[in-house]
């Protein structure tokens, strides 16, 4: 068994979780509204999310930063919550589940970074 007095590495994941949670609380509902309802329902002009607008947005340094933070931190927030919820409902999946969920977030982070860099500046 693990030594219960060993230092926990949880702060790394907890801080990513917390940062993602704060971002989700501030922006999550707004993003869902814009992307899923605002533009599709015609409340907002369709050009707001058009390919060229979004491409320009992703080409801008600040746009890139925003997109990266939103995608990556939401990922880390979600997987941490999923992992701990599994534990809460009695599925103590241990290390393999840890590797799977945090691995997913790490891959998501890398893909986001790669895609944003590929778009260029």
């Amino acid at each position, binding site marked *: 068994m*693990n030594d219960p*007095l*060993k*230092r*926990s590495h949880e*702060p*790394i994941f907890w801080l990513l979780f917390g940062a993602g949670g704060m971002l989700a609380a501030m922006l999550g509902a707004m993003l869902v509204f814009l992307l899923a309802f605002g533009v599709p329902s015609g409340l907002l002009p369709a050009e707001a999310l058009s390919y060229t607008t979004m491409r320009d947005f992703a080409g801008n340094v600040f746009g890139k930063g925003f997109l990266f933070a939103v995608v990556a931190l939401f990922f880390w927030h979600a997987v941490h919550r999923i992992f*701990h919820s599994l*534990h*809460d409902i009695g599925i103590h999946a241990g290390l393999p589940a840890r590797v799977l969920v945090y691995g997913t977030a790490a891959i998501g982070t890398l893909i986001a970074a790669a895609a944003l860099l590929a778009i260029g500046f």
Partner: protein
Amino acid sequence: MKPQTKTVAVLRYRPEQDKEPFWQDYEVPFAEDTSVLAALNYIKDELDGTLSFRWSCRQAICGSCGLMIGGKPRLACKTFLRDFEGKVTVEALAHFPIERDLVVVMDDFIAKLERVKPWLMPREERAPEDGEYRQTPQEMSLYEQFAGCINCGLCYAACPQVGLNPNFLGPGAIALLHRYNLDSRDGGSEERMKLISAELGVFNCTAVGYCSAVCPKIVDPANAVNVNKMNSARDYFFRFLPRPAPKGGCQ
């Protein structure tokens, strides 16, 4: 006039004769002011002398009458029969091993309390002739709330993480730890940080908050635990930097 009665269902367990706990019903007369503790005493005195339970002060001070009443962690002396429709169920505190009937084994809980070094470790030793360790009311107000704990164990029965991982230091012990860390006269924070940051420490908590909801003394252990997540995270990343000077306090 015949007094009203209520059925009190008690989870009994007598290790020398019962294989497992079982429910036993008692009819108890009650009035507006009959507490669950008074009902248990009535059962013991009038109906069944074999029933075992702990109590002492009858006024939510000693912390010995913590039980699951109606399925929730509560103090028997602070809970009243009048507040329950129909039958009232009374069981030993969840997450503690049953010793007998409503009496639980507290050893692990007590060991956890001791583990956080719940005493003042003075920042600077003073000889008696140097005078007392002084503190302003403002400095006291920082930790006063956390000093209200009566070690009743309700927060341990409430905490789902204590139930899942018995190694977890738990809400009460961390609230006590926090009480000493916040004390301006104390210099033991760094030593206690090892526990907070360990596998058995604050990161077992998933911020459910039920511990604070059931506390009969309005202590907020969930706050103590979650504030210390930040302290621990700071320690994790900045532990190799020079330490800041210890917090201000008595001079």
